C-alpha cells in the first residue's frame, strides 16, 4: 500500500485534474487553482522519489523550490487577474483572446 507506485498514481491523478481545470474553467482564479494542483503533483512526485531510492534529500529541496515558485507565481498571477478584470470587466480567460490577431 505505502509504496512508490501509489504515490505516483496519486500525483498523476492530481496532475490530470489540474490540467483539466486549466483547460475547462473559465474563471482565471479557477485556472490558477488548476495550476496549483499541477504544482502539488510535481512536489509530491519529487518527495516520493526522495523517500524511495537512494535516500538523498535533493527531491525535498526541489519540492521546496516548487513551493517558492508557486508563491511568487500566485502573487503575480493575481496581479495580472486584477488588470484583466479592470480591462475586460470580468476575469474570464476566454475573454482574453486578443492573441488571435
Amino acid at each position, binding site marked *: 500500500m505505502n509504496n512508490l507506485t501509489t504515490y505516483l498514481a496519486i500525483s498523476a491523478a492530481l496532475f490530470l485534474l489540474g490540467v483539466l481545470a486549466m483547460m475547462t474553467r473559465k474563471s482565471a482564479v479557477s485556472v490558477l487553482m*488548476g495550476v496549483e494542483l499541477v504544482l502539488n503533483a510535481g512536489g509530491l512526485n519529487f518527495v516520493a522519489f526522495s523517500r524511495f531510492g537512494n535516500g538523498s534529500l535533493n527531491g525535498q*529541496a526541489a519540492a521546496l523550490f516548487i513551493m517558492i515558485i508557486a508563491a511568487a507565481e500566485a502573487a503575480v498571477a*493575481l*496581479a495580472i487577474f486584477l488588470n484583466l478584470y479592470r480591462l475586460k470587466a470580468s476575469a474570464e480567460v476566454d475573454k482574453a483572446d486578443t492573441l488571435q490577431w
Partner: protein
Amino acid sequence: MEILQNIVFVFFVLLTVISAGVVVFHKRIIYSAFALLFTFFGVAALYVYLAADFLAASQVLIYVGGILTLIIFGVFLTAKITTLEIPDETHQRYIALIPVALLGVGLFWMIFSAPWDSTLRSVEPTTKPLGKLLLTEYLVPFEVASMLLLAALIGAMRLARFYKKEEV
C-alpha cells in the same frame, strides 16, 4: 495497527484526490477554493507519510496560509459579489477529455509497468539536513529564488496598482 495505518493512509489519499476533483468540477468557485484547502492538507499528510516533516509544515504554512488566502482574495476581487454563490462556467468540457485521456493512459501505463526501486530509507528529521543542503549545495538557487520572490513582489505591486488613464 497495520490495518489502522492503512485505513488512515487510504483516507488521506481519498481526501486528496476527491477534494481535487471537487476543485475541478464544482460549479461554485468558493467551493472549489475550499476544496483546494483539503487537497493541500491531504498532500501535507502524504508528505508526513513520506517522512518529509519540514515540507509538510511548509506545505500547510505556504499553501494554506499564503496561496489559498491569495486565491480567495482573488475570487473576491475579480467577481461582482452579490451572494456567496459565485458561479463559474466551464467550456470545451468534452474535447478537453481527449488530451487528458491521452496523458492519463501514458502516465498510468508508465507508473504501473516500470520496475520502481521501492527500498525505504530510515526515517529521520529532515529540517536540519535540508537547511544544510540549502545553504551549501543549493546556495545559488536559494539566493536566486529569494531574488525571484523579491522581483515577484515588486512586479505584482506594480501590476496591481491603479493608474489613471493619462498615467499609463
